[in-house]
Structure formats: C-alpha cells, structure tokens
C-alpha cells in the first residue's frame, strides 16, 4: 500500500488517473480506500469530480497519482471529457452485481480508446467483490491478481453452483476478463469495502505506465501548453493529440 514516503530519493512522477463508471458502483469508495484506507457507507455523491492525490511507491520510482473521481450519474457523462483529458490512466469501474454496469463500462472503454490520450492505461475493475459468494470470490480474486487465466473457468463453475446461495454476483469473472483481454485492459475484481485488490489495481497501473510517458512533477510540464486549448476542449476532444506530444514533454 502506498504511503506518503515524501522524502523518497527515488524519481517521482505524477500520473493523472480518472475514474469512470456507472453511478454507485463504488468509484469514490475505491479512491477512499486507496487514499485513506477508509470506507464510508454514505459518501456525498460526487459533483462534477473530486480530486485527490496519493503516492504509490514502486521499487524504482514513486508515482504520484492525481486522481479524478468523476460523478457517475448518466447525465454527468457529457462532462467526463473534461476530466479524462490528458489522463494517462483510467479506472473503469463496474459493479459485479449489476450487468448493466459492465455494459456502461464497455462504453466508457470505447470512449476512452477513441477520445482520450493515446496510450492511456485502462484498468477494468469489477467492484463489490465482497458481495459474491465467498468461495468463488476468494479463489478467483487471488488468481486474477496474478493473471492466472486457468482459474476463471473453474471459478465459473463454482459460482454457478452457488448461484442460489447468498451470491449476488451477476457478472461472471470470465465474461469481464475475456472482454478485458480482447481490449487489452488490466482486469481486477475488487472490494472497496474489504480492501481486497484495491492497492493492487493502482500498483498494476503504476507499473503499466510506460516510462516514456512519465513526466516529472507536473510543474515541469508547463511546456505542454503547446497542445493548445481549443475553444471547445471541454467537451469535444475530437482532435486526437499526436502520439509524440506526450513524449515531447517528458522530462
């Protein structure tokens, strides 16, 4: 788990990360867990987006996540481009007890692929794993974290067997995982409530960010303004920035 190892001599770079997903899938809770290691049942809904930061220590470097936690209500979707703009990483969250939330997540992935910075690292996260039946959740989550593909089918069977148990899972791990692989996404099932896999998600993202696209603390990246601010950048990010732009301002 990341801590505020402020004086770390390791090179430090900041990464803009945006959370997207349907309302009430637990985006804010995930962030809360990651940033404060805390869980609140009743969190004020996010208006627009909340901004938080947290450091993540890797063996070779420190990543400072600048986290944009967006509002999930459908009508806020049109505001999202303003938050994912320039993001280097995205957490697309769905709720494993709600199939519709996976569909929504897929839409977000498509949106990001097309509109966000090229090379953005996307993680697909099925939250509320604590609501899945114990056995299924237990086996699978551990395995997924270590990217073990074989575990999925087995777990699936188990899950079916437990279906009438207290298992509220409605999205099979296999389904989501297959989709994630197809799209080249990181994939995790997490529980913000128990803390399961939360830190792992962020660590995996930190590791996945290509070295080249890392910039120093944002202050040094002032030259980035060459990207310009189109009049309508807020909503329409139609102009895809050239791949080189990012590297250009690495320092």
């Amino acid at each position, binding site marked *: 788990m990341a801590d505020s190892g402020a004086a770390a001599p390791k090179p430090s770079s*900041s990464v*803009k990360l945006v959370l997207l997903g349907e*309302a*009430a899938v637990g985006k804010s809770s995930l962030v809360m867990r990651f940033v404060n290691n805390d869980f609140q*049942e*009743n*969190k*004020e*809904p*996010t*208006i*627009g*987006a909340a*901004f938080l*930061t947290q450091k993540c220590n890797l063996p070779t470097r420190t990543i400072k996540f*600048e986290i*944009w936690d967006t*509002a999930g*209500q*459908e*009508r*806020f*979707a*049109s*505001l999202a*481009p*303003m*938050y994912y*703009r*320039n993001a280097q990483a995205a957490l697309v969250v769905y709720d494993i007890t709600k199939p519709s939330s996976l569909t929504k997540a897929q*839409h977000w992935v*498509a*949106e990001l692929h*097309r*509109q966000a910075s090229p090379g953005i690292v996307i993680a697909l996260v099925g939250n509320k794993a604590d609501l899945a039946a114990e056995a299924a959740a237990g086996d699978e989550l551990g395995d997924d974290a270590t990217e073990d593909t074989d575990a999925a089918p087995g777990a699936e069977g188990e899950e079916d067997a437990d279906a009438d148990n207290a298992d509220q899972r409605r999205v099979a791990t296999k389904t989501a995982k297959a989709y994630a692989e197809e799209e080249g996404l990181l994939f995790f099932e997490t529980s913000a409530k128990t803390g399961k896999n939360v830190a792992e998600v962020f660590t995996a993202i930190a590791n996945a960010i290509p070295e080249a696209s890392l910039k120093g603390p*944002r*202050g040094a*990246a*002032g030259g*980035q*303004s060459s*990207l310009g*601010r189109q*009049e*309508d*950048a*807020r*909503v*329409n990010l*139609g102009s895809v920035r050239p791949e080189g732009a990012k590297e250009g301002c690495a320092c």
Partner: protein
Amino acid sequence: MFNLSNLVQKAQQFIEPALPLAVPASNDQRPSKAALFRHQFRLPDSQSPLQEITAELTLSPHHSTRSSSSESTTGEKERGQGNHYVGKLHLSEQYLCFSTQGSSFLHSASLTSSSSFTGQTHGAGPAGNGFTLPLCAIRRVERLHSQSYMFALAITTWNGTPDSKAKKTAPSGQKLTIQLAGSRQQCERFCDALKRGLREGIKDVENLRAVVAECYSEYLLIDDKDEAAKEREHPDTGLGMIFRYPGNARKLRDATKIRLWKEYLRENGRSVTLVRQPTFHKLIRVGLPNRLRGEIWELTSGSFFLRLEKPSLYTETLAKFSGRNSLAIDEIEKDLNRSLPEYPGFQSEEGIGRLRRVLTAYSWTNESVGYCQAMNIVVAALLIYMSESQAFFLLSILCDRLLPGYYATTMYGTLLDQRVFESLVEKTMPILWDHLVKSDVQLSVVSLPWFLSLYINSMPLIFAFRVLDVFFLEGPKVLFQIGLAILRINGEELLDATDDGTFISVLKSYFSRLDESAHPRSDNPKLRAVTRFQELMVVAFKEFAGITQNTISEQRAKHKDAVLANIESFTKRTSIRNLGPESKRLSVDDLGFLYDKFYAVLYERQQRAEILEQEAERKAKAERTKASAIFAPSSGDNVQRGRVALGPSPTEMDYDAFREFLAGIAKWAITDSPSSPEQENSQPSHSYFGNSNRNRPSTSPWGSGPEPADHEFMRRLFRQWDVDMTDALSLQNVVTGFAQVKGTKDIMSNISYFFELYDDDGDGRVDREGILRISEALLFLSRRGVSQSGSPAASTTDVNSGDHAEKGNPDEQFLSSVSAFIRRCFEYADPDHPSHRGDHALDSATKDMDNFAIGEDDEDEDLISLSAPTSPAPTQNKDLQTSSEDHTPLSPHDSIKSAKAKAANLALDPNKPLYITLPTFRMVILADEVLEHFFEVGFSSSFRLASTSPPSHSSTASNLTTFSNAGKHAAGSTAGGLGGVVGGAGAGVVPPSKGLRGMLDNIVSDGMRVAAEVKRRMDEAQKEMDREARQGRDDEDEDDEPSPAKDADLLEGAETADVETAGKDRLPEADLLVLTGSGSAGGGRKRSASDASRKVLEFER
C-alpha cells in the same frame, strides 16, 4: 429564448408560405418581452404585462409616523418626508408591480452600490426598488385629488392577518401613493384595467390568507403586544428549528438582524406587501437572519408567487404519485443519505424524509429533469431554512428560471455557464487566464461544482448561505461575480499553481479560511476585523459590479450554439459507438450521416408540431376575451425543445417520420403527387396516420423537405426494421436496417433480403400477389432516375443531362426486365414442382387447392379464398376497389381476399395459386442482366448516405424516369378529370406517378399476354376462363396505346369502381360485372394509381 427570432424564421421556412400560420415579427417579440417582465418581477409564467405607465411612488410620511410604536426606526431614508421613487408601474393579470429605473438611485450606500444591481436589468436581475403586489393583497385604491392634472392613487394594502384586524394597534395596512405620469387617456386606461384586476383578485384572497399565514414575518410582527396572537403556532422555518441553524447565532448577530428586519418589515410591509427600498438590499447583503431567511428567499426569488398561485400543488403532487416508482426516485434514494451528511438534520429520518419528498415531488412535476445529483445538496440546504412546500417551489424556480438547463439530462446549462465563466475570466483577468492556458489547467474542473451546487459544498455552509441570500435577490450573475472574486483574491497564488492539483488545493484552503481576517497584519483594527468572506463580497459586488445580468445573457447567447453543438457531437459520438456490432457494417461516416438525418427529421417534426401548436394556442387565446384570468403558458421559451443537447427528446420515429427520413435519403421515397389532402383522408383508419394527422392541420406536414411518398414498399421496410414491433424505429433499428441493406456487397444476400421483405409469413414463399407487389416495388424504386420534370414538388436537382440521350433505353430496358421478371416468375413458380406449369393446368383447381390446404396450414384461409373467387378481373380492378374503399369499409379479410382474388386474375390461371421460393426468385433475378445489376448495385446505392457518391445516373437500374413520358401523356390529359380525386394537387400539378402506373400497366398487360397465352394452351376447361383470356387481350390492346382516349375512360373507370364496390362481396357475379367494365377500367386504374398509398392501405388491412 436567445435566438428565438431565428428559430421562428427557420420554423416559418418549414411551413409552406401559403399557410395562414402567422408568426409575424411582432409575435416573436411578445413572448420575450413578457418573459423579461416576468423575470424582472419574479412573476409566475401565467402573468403577462398588460399595462405599463411611468409613475412616481411616494411612501407616505404618514406611514412612517404611524409606525411610531417602535420609534427607534430611523432608517435613513425615512428621515425625510417620505421617499419618492420614479419608475414604471406595471399591471399584469394578477399583479401590480413597480420598479425604479436605474437612474433613480445613483446615490447609495457604499457597500451596496445599488446602481449596479438595481434598476433595469433586462430580464432576470433584481427588480430594483419597488414592489410586486398581488392584486388580491390590495385592500383599497383611492383616487386622490392632486394638483395639476396628475392622476394619483392611494393604495392601501391588505396587511396583517384577519385576526389582528380588531386590534387598534395592528397596522391597518400600509399606504402607498402613486402618481401616474401619462396622458389622461393612458391613466384612465390603466385605472380601468386595475379595477378589473382588483375585481378578479377577490377570489384569490383565500389563497393569500393561507399562504401568508405560513410566513414567519407575520408571526414576527404580531407578537408585539398582542397576547392572543402569541399563541399562534410558530410557522415552519425549516429543519433549523429542530436541529439548530448552522453557525453560531451570536457570532452571526442573528438577534440584531432580526430586530432590524422587524423594523423594516413593519414600515415597508411584509411578505406580499413588501416594498423594496435600499435598506432592503443592504439588509440582505449583510446576511439574513435564520428564521426569516426562508421567507425572504421565497420572496426575492419569486417562488412565493408560485406558491400563492397553487398553494397545495406540493401536497397534491405527492398524493397523486404516491406509491409510483421511477428512475428518478431510484436515483434520489441512492443520494438521500449523502446530502449534507454533516448537518444533524440529515442524519435523522425527519430530515431525510423531507428531502425525499421534495425531490420526489419535483421529479414528478418536471419529468424531463427528474433528478440530478447536486439537487440533493441544494434542496438539503434549502430545507434547513424553509418548509417542504417552500423548498419545493423554490427548487422549481431554480431549475426553471435561475439555473436553466443546469440539471437537465445533458446539463447544457451547466456547461454553457462554465463557458461563460471562462470567457469572463479571460476578459477580466487576462493574466490569470493566460497562465491557466499555459499550464493547461482547465478552469471548469474547479468552478463547475461552484455553480452546480451554488457554492454549498465548496464553502462552509454559513458563507454559502450568504451567497444564496444575494443570489436569490439579484439572480444568476451573483454566481459569476463570486466566482470571479474568488479567482481575483487568490490570483497571486494561482499564478504559482501549474497543475490542476495545486490549483484545487489553493482554493480549497482559501475556502476553509473564509472566516479569518482578510488583513491579519494590518494595524488598523477595523481592517483587521474584515473577514475574508466580507472581502470576497466586496470584491464580488464592487470590483465586478460591471458583470450584470445583461452581460451574462449576452455571453450565454454568444456561446450557446458552440456548447450545444459540442454536447451534440458528444452525444452523437457516444450513441454511434453504442449501436452494436451490426452497425460496424456501415462506415463511421455513414453512421454519422444516419444519426444526423434521423435526429434532424425528429427534431424538425417536433418543431413543426410545436409551432403549429403554438399557433393554435395563440389563435385560441385570441378568440377568448381579454379576461384577465387567462393563463397563458410561456410557450415562447420552449421553442427549442427537442434539440438533443437540451434534454430529453424523441428517440423514435413513427412511420410518417420514417417516410420523411427516407425521402431525405432516397430519391424514390419522394412522392409523385405532393400534398394531396385526399391521401390522408383515405386512410383515416390507419394507426400511423392517426399520429400524424394531429400534426397537420390543413397543411403539408413535411416542412421544407420534399414530401415523401407512401408506398407499400416503404411500409414493408418499416415493418421489417421495426424488430421490436413497437410501431416506431429507434436509431438502432434504422442503423441495423441499413446495415442489412447497404452493409453488404453481396448480391445474393441483397436478393434474399428483398425476398424476405415480401415473404409475409416467413415460410419462404411469395405468392402471386407478392410477385406483383415485388414488381411494382421494383418499378417504384427505380422510377426516378434522371429527370424530375414531371414533379414540381421534387426538389432534387439531379438532372443529369449527359445521360439524356440514352435515357430512353435503360428505362425501357428496365421496364422490359420487370415484365420479363413477372413472366418468368409465373413461369417458374409453382405450388409444388416446377413441372406444374401452365401446360399441366388441366389438373383441376380443386386439386391445387387440396395441395395447399394440406401443405400450408397457416395459409389456409387466404388460399381457399384465392381459389374460390377466381374470376379474372384485370389488376386495375384491384386498384379500383381500393380507391372505392373510402366509402365502403371492409373487414380486413374481405379486402385481402378480394385483393388477392383480383391479383390472381392478373396473370395465370386464377384457380391455381402459386408461389415462388427464394431460389426461384434468385434465379429469375439473375437471369436478367438489368435486374441483376439492380440488386448488385442499384438498390443499395439508391440510399444515399455520407460515403455514397450520388447514384450513378447512367446505371441502368436507377435511370428509369422516362416512365413519366409514357404516363405523363395520359396523366396530363386526365388531370382535369382527376381534380376531384387528387384534390390538393394544385393547379398544373401532374401527378407523375401516372407515369409509373402507366408503365406498370404495360407490364401488367405484358403479364396478361403471357397469361393469355398460357391459358390458351390450356385445355379450355372452363368457358369462363376463355372469356377472361379474351378479355385480357382486349385490355392489353388498349393499354398498348396510351392515348387521349383515356380521358373518357376515366369517368367510366369511376363507375366501374362503384360497381366493383357494390359487387365485391358476391364475388362471382361481381366479377362478371367487372368484366364487362374492364375495358374502361384502364382509366380508373390510372386514377387510383396516382395514389399509391391506397394500395398500402389495402395491404395493411
């Protein structure tokens, strides 16, 4: 609102110029003026300015002395001999309003600098000094004798509750003296109107009494010396009564504020009768006292007047929808526990219950907004200071007037105001702006929540409420002023911030220190005492005094289109991406094109419907008397409804819209006989038309685009694409449909697709009638190749003169191809085996019938009826019969039966039902080069999408307009006679579909010839058949030479129709009759063909 006049103009283009629909320039001004008036005085939408006159308001000195019971009152303005305000007096249906002009108040207290926020504000600004007085609150009006010729009125208001009337101490109502400055005539007119209004107002007194009784001010003022009144129940002033108001009351100097307000209210009237003087504005600027806050918010925002209008709307709404569920309610439930959770009231069931009820009630009254996150926070804040009902109405005012579009499903208002805010920052703080741009910090990520939740979750509550105090009085510009001031004050630090994170944390820490001294190191103790919040207010209202409501409106108007366009492109992008795998068969450009077309059609249709509706409304209103009690909804504000970015808009198109849609995409879908009202009348029974009829009172409903045709083929397409059987197509349906048509280059699948369109029961067979329909559809699709000369309505200008020379040939080619198609179809079609051809027709009809009955359970009925009637009436009779259906309602079965019966007569032995299968169909198509080409290219390219170059005109398939030449002749000559039938076709309009029908006739007769031949080869089993065959030949002869002779036939044709109708049920005899008339039927056939839609009707039945 903003480009209303543009819209109206645009709208007018949609409507045919000849329409009586007058949306004259004068008309488009009116709603906006009324809106300005309503906004200025915060009046409900039911009010409109009836009278207006310059006047001088004198607050009588007597008034101030009379209130000597509290002689401590030394409000500076009262020191004189009363105050004089020059301004405008307005009269609406239920209100008398007065407001000073901007110039009347240049001197003013330092903090307020009222000149900037009083006076004329063009819309939503504060109403300046003056009053907004419901007529029912006026107790009496006297005309004063005055010097000069001036009219002077003394108005005594209804002030005080009834039970205080008896007490001599209770003020018997304040007196306002108003001098009218105008010609005698004007004054009299005003007074007359006022008199009428007062009379009407009497009936509202009950409402007034009820509403006013809930006002804290009444309670506050009464308990002075009045023992009885002290027992009055304390009005509900929000959760704060139970859970304490936020902040430290002593620190907020609540008691002092209450005292000051008490004085002010005593002298200047309370609740409805309140007169706004400069002190009023000042008292609000320093912050409202807790218990009075709700009431003043209500008054200054105008939600009070809404409540006065419908005092029980809140409870009624709750009762009406109790137990119902909705998406909004689900969303509300999710957020109830997380709305101002730090306030104790919202940790209790009481508070949460109130919040739930208010949000729910609002979501029902405005379903298009429903519920938006952030509303929960705003309402929670309101509920601390007001009752549920008060909060409900204030929320309505917020959503509808103060924050338009903020909470809409696309949140366009929020985005628009962010854009406005950015441009104001750019203008007022260019250095900071440059810095933001340079460091790529997006301002709205910070400022958006400020606006969306009115600073409530950005600042500590007590300060946010101070902002709200001013916001409700002065309008939305306050949000901008505060926002600019925040940036100005933090400017230096922000210039050091180079990323979003720092930017946000600078402001966060600023907000958390608002209660600290703004100048902690100053030597001047007074300066040290100024808090950061006070500094903020001063900067906001002094330094940014130049930001007026006018500025905001202008900026909004300037950026509106861009913002809406952005939202729309976002929506488009998203929705195209989410269309599913089928859509991948079309190019992105095509999808974009379809998306645009789809929504453009829906949007335009809605616009037209709305304008017509408005017009009707306007007329209705004009017809009514000038009675003052008219409630006219402000429809003018809603003209843009339906634009995607503005919120929920229709997402499905009915059949009519689909036709319009197709007409914009495919040439063949444009009608040949524009705007014949008779076309509508002939189909009153159809559900699709039930819909559209409402849209077209006496007018072409097609707007600026070409009027679409209504061909059976289009209906088939519609039904094929309507996979959910909802009688409506979503974009998804349309795209999937197009993906099937255009998404493949494979001729085989195109052929199969076409075949399936006509395979009604999905059994892989198309019967005789179907074959004819297919051939007709082929002609329909290809009838408009090059020139449109015959059709004045057609706006397409794709005359390709290059092809002119060879025009005739391809047309003829196609024609003969189609006739060959029919011939071959009949040749190869067979119930069971290919061997069952005409030669073997000796097999009796009954045998065939048996075959069918056994093989095709589901077709039993039709088939039996097919074989039963079997008398050879030429096809045209089918049409005759259809056209006559206007007067003869038939059961669907009859109609199908007879239709099929007629159709059966067309070609082969009618006793012998037949069908073709897909392989046969395919074979027949492939056997003909022209048709093959059509299915390979022509059909799918007849839909012109983005990436499709206009269909090559030289392609054989689409180059067939010369039909019209053949038909036109006949058609032209018959046009006169057709007048009655075609009706609205208008002078000189020749329905060019005559051409089509002419060609079809030829084809049909071609088929007839085949039939005749086949029949002759038959064993002449029945005499009747012989006769038929002969008859068929007769017919063919006639058809071969389309000549002026048809003129005469027409009338006879009409007769035939009658005969036909009469005899329809008794089939055998009827057919005989028809036979005798069949010679003339050719003309009749033409007539009915001019109106292809009839066939569709028949088919549908």
